[in-house]
């Protein structure tokens, strides 16, 4: 079972990101589960959502305490001390950050071995006109892990969005995928 | 019993629970006499015929009326209508114009030739003699016929009507009198005109030939009059003048006259004289009536007649009496009058007091006494025993005479109105019939009429009384009738003003306002003149219906 924890702020589409990922998986015949760490938070507050992906039915309802992956939608959240709590040894972090994956660890004095950055907000502004980084990050996540085909994300987007929003998001995820190396985390996925 | 699922209930099932058991008092329909009914000397129940008229049935109204009074076109014109004085509506806005409606119904009957619903008596029926074809005699004859009794009227005059023909045309057209009397006689009454008691016929004969006798001779003899024993030699007394006017439509030559008296005869004479260019005065001890403040000292004439006389220029010197006749030789040149007042003495009785120093002279060349009449006793001396009137019991039976009854002006205590005479005639007829048929004598409803305070005025609206059109003074010449009567529409509108005191107005108030639906509306089952029945199974006795009955027709009684 693969467990993902998505961190973000209210309004960044954190739960939607989790739902999109799980939907993509289910559409590919996986068993999946996505749910928010339910809160009363308002727009801007830190929020968390969880995704479980498995090839057999998932029965547990507990929160993801030891994720395989973290997707962090806001660079500033890295300052929250507990943000990486429970990340499995060998687990990876996908971070929405303006700096490149090379620059970020240096400037922020963190280990870069398991961290990939994506300027998702920048890309979202460019393609959507709005700072909603979630789909770009999902696209990058799939590219990195090769868990699910890129088309599955498009399909799950199609189930949720229509018209210009859908088209712009598809363009965004295409662009996001291009900036990310393929299959970098694939071994973890198969672990 | 089985519970229903969820405890639902079927419709209207509270009917199984008799809330009437809660009751400590219950409502009843209580027919009370309306004050108009109680006040009518003829015994009419005006609210009853007003109700029929209000419902749009004038003929029904007339038939209700003529059950009591066969001559409504006459009484509607000449009655002083005590009914209106009693009318509770007078305490709200203005009394009903009952006399106008009575007249209207009478006129309608004449115009449409409605007949009394009366069958001619069988020839085997008992036969009663009636003496006098005036209002009392005619009424007695009519009511006897209604009871199936044969009647022969003996009258000294050539034409029936008696005193009715002493009333001037402008008040009571002769044609009206003739129409009603003709219709009355047509019920099968035998009339023997020109039969004067004591001359053509005798009491003993009548006693032999008839099962009973009713005497309605009237009072056709003027009272003696003088001032300290003095009378002018050319004195005309009132009744005589009226008869002359009735017969030949003329009055003796005179320039000015003082009529003495305050009754209808005095007013009639004064107005006739006025119509003939005579400067006319009335001198009377009593007071001019004040409709707002009626008193026992008021002139006895009908107020509206007094009012019309004043309009026509008759001068009325009320609270005055004659102190002295001023004669030049035996010819009158004037009268000295003095201001008087009826005052109560220490014993509480009224007596007249003349106020010294209030004397004045009235220059008139005639003085006409109209102070009342008395019975002409010829042929009835044995019954009168020297009295001026017959002494009768409440059924009109002359004391000590089983089969002899009397009514009208000739009986003691009579008010001297046509209406009262009609009432006397009816009561006597009913008593005669009861005796002849060996039935119980009729009883009298002496209950107090329903008072104004027993009514609920919230349910009525002020509405102006309908007044008959009155000829302008300048057109009041000759015999032209002064009051024109009501149109059908006016009469109906007026009838609608009736409170129906003490009777069911069928207004639905009780039916509408009963919180327990314990008043049921019905045409078929109700009685006592109501249109509703109480369902005592459910009536809780709250009294709302009685409180809100507009006419006082419902009262609460303890269980």
């Amino acid at each position, binding site marked *: 079972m693969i467990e993902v924890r998505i961190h973000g702020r209210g309004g960044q589409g954190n739960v939607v990101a989790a739902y999109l990922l799980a939907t993509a998986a289910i559409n590919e015949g996986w068993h999946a589960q996505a749910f928010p760490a339910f809160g009363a938070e308002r727009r801007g507050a830190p929020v968390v959502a969880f995704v479980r992906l498995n090839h057999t039915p998932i029965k547990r309802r507990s929160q993801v305490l030891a994720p395989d992956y973290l997707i962090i939608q806001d660079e500033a959240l890295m300052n929250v001390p507990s943000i990486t709590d429970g990340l499995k040894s060998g687990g990876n972090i996908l971070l929405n950050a303006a700096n490149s994956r090379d620059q970020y660890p240096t400037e922020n004095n963190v280990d870069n071995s398991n961290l990939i950055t994506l300027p998702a907000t920048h890309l979202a502004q460019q393609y959507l006109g709005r700072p909603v980084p979630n789909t770009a990050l999902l696209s990058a996540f799939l590219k990195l892990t090769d868990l699910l085909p890129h088309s599955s994300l498009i399909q799950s987007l199609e189930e949720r969005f229509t018209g210009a929003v859908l088209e712009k998001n598809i363009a965004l995820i295409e662009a996001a995928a291009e900036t990310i190396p393929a299959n970098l985390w694939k071994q973890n996925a198969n672990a | 019993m089985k519970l229903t699922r969820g405890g639902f209930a*079927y*419709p209207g*099932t*509270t009917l*199984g629970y008799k809330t009437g058991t809660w009751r400590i008092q219950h409502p*009843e329909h209580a027919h009370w006499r309306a004050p108009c009914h109680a006040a009518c000397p003829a015994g009419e129940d005006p609210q009853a015929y007003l109700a029929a008229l209000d419902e749009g049935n004038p003929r029904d109204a007339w038939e209700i009326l003529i059950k009591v009074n066969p001559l409504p076109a006459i009484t509607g014109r000449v009655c002083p209508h005590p009914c209106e004085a009693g009318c509770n509506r007078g305490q709200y806005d203005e009394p009903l114009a009952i006399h106008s409606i009575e007249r209207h119904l009478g006129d309608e009957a004449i115009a449409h030739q409605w007949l009394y619903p009366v069958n001619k008596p069988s020839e085997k029926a008992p036969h009663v003699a009636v003496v006098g074809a005036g209002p009392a005699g005619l009424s007695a004859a009519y009511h006897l016929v209604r009871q199936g009794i044969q009647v022969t009227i003996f009258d000294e005059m050539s034409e029936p009507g008696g005193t009715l023909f002493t009333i001037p045309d402008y008040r009571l057209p002769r044609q009206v009198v003739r129409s009603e009397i003709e219709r009355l006689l047509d019920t099968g009454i035998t009339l023997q005109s020109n039969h004067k008691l004591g001359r053509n016929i005798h009491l003993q004969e009548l006693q032999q030939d008839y099962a009973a006798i009713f005497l309605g001779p009237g009072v056709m003899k003027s009272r003696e009059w003088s001032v300290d024993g003095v009378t002018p030699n050319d004195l005309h007394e009132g009744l005589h003048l009226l008869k002359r006017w009735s017969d030949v439509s003329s009055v003796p030559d005179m320039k000015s006259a003082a009529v003495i008296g305050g009754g209808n005869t005095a007013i009639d004479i004064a107005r006739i004289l006025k119509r003939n260019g005579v400067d006319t005065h009335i001198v009377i001890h009593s007071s001019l009536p004040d409709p707002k403040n009626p008193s026992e000292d008021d002139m006895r004439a009908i107020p509206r007649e007094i009012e019309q006389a004043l309009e026509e220029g008759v001068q009325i010197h009320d609270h005055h009496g004659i102190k002295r006749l001023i004669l030049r030789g035996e010819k009158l040149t004037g009268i000295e009058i003095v201001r008087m007042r009826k005052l109560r003495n220490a014993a509480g009785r009224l007596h007249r007091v003349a106020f010294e120093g209030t004397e004045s002279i009235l220059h008139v060349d005639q003085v006409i006494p109209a102070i009342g009449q008395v019975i002409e006793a010829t042929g009835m001396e044995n019954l009168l025993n020297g009295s001026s009137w017959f002494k009768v019991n409440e059924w009109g039976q002359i004391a000590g005479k089983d089969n002899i009854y009397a009514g009208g002006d000739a009986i003691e205590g009579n008010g001297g109105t046509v209406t009262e005479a009609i009432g006397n005639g009816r009561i006597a007829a009913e008593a005669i019939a009861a005796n002849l048929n060996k039935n119980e004598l009729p009883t009298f409803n002496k209950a107090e009429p329903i008072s104004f305070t027993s009514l609920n005025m919230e349910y009525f609206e002020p509405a102006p009384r309908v007044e008959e059109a009155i000829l302008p003074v300048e057109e009041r010449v000759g015999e032209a009738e002064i009051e024109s009567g009501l149109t059908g529409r006016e009469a109906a509108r007026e009838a609608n003003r009736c409170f129906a005191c003490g009777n069911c107005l069928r*207004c*639905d108030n009780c*039916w509408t306002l009963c919180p327990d639906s314990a008043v049921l509306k019905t045409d078929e089952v109700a009685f006592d003149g109501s249109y509703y029945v109480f369902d005592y199974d459910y009536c809780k006795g709250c009294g*709302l219906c009685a409180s809100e009955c507009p006419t006082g027709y419902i009262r609460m009684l303890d269980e």
Partner: protein
Amino acid sequence: MKTNKRAVTADMLVHLRKNQPRFEGIESGHRACLGCGEALAARLVTEAAGPEVMIANATGCLEIFTTPWPESAWRLPWMHSLFENTGAIAAGMEAALKAQGKPTKVLAFGGDGATFDIGFQALSGMLERGHNVLYVCFDNEAYMNTGIQRSSSTPHAAMTTTSPPGSERMGKRHLKKNILTIVAAHQIPYAATTSVAYASDLRKKVRRAMEIEGPTFLQIHSPCPLGWGHDSAHSIKVARLAVQTGLFPVIELERSELIGSMPIRHPRPVTDYLKLQQRFRHLFNKDDARAVEELAHIQALADHNIKHYCLDGEGMDALDSDGADTVRRGGMRWA
């Protein structure tokens, strides 16, 4: 006088009752007190509304006295749920009938407690959502079912068991809530007051409301002999005086605008109304300055109503406070 008390047979009565020339929504045998204004008002409403209705009835006297299982006084589909949810029950009925395509009109019945107080929210919701419901408030100005406690409809200075007069109090300290204006502020098509003393006005307003598609509201002043302390025979008289003094304005509002009122022909002094009722008896102690002041206050309230709602009559009017209850022979006026 002869009594007709037992002159009519039981069979005749049964037949008669079945053939009354009006629709009787509430049958006899209910357990209302003697002279109950609410029982009368409710019957008049059902009479005018006719049989094609469904009723939601709040907890209260009306509910209790009409439906002691296994009996019911109602001849209409009727439901009592709770005290405070009548607006919502009625709204649900209406939604269901709408969904089923049925033309049945929904009526909601509540007392003043159920309407002014505890059920106010559900009423407001029903009005705001535009349900096609005629809500009728039988206003007897206190919680009568529980034994006369003050409600927000209880008039100023009235005595109830929870607003008793005493050395520190002169009955209810607060004013009667102006529910009609509040209700009308929902911009509903029709909101009116009427009084059980004016049955034809009441029925006319019910018929008017029945014709309107949308929420309508009728507040019916309904005296409670027990709670107000007046003779059971005087329920109508007392109700009429409430109108004639100006203390209970009879008005009509459409979309919150005053569009009609019953003018008062001859305004009566409020004491005429108050003195008939035990709930105001503490105001008639002439030695008590507070009583004198409260009477003046109540008169001022009446005067204010007359001015505020333009109740001053201009002469005689067939529909004014004196004319509106006029009767005629044959009962046509009540039709």
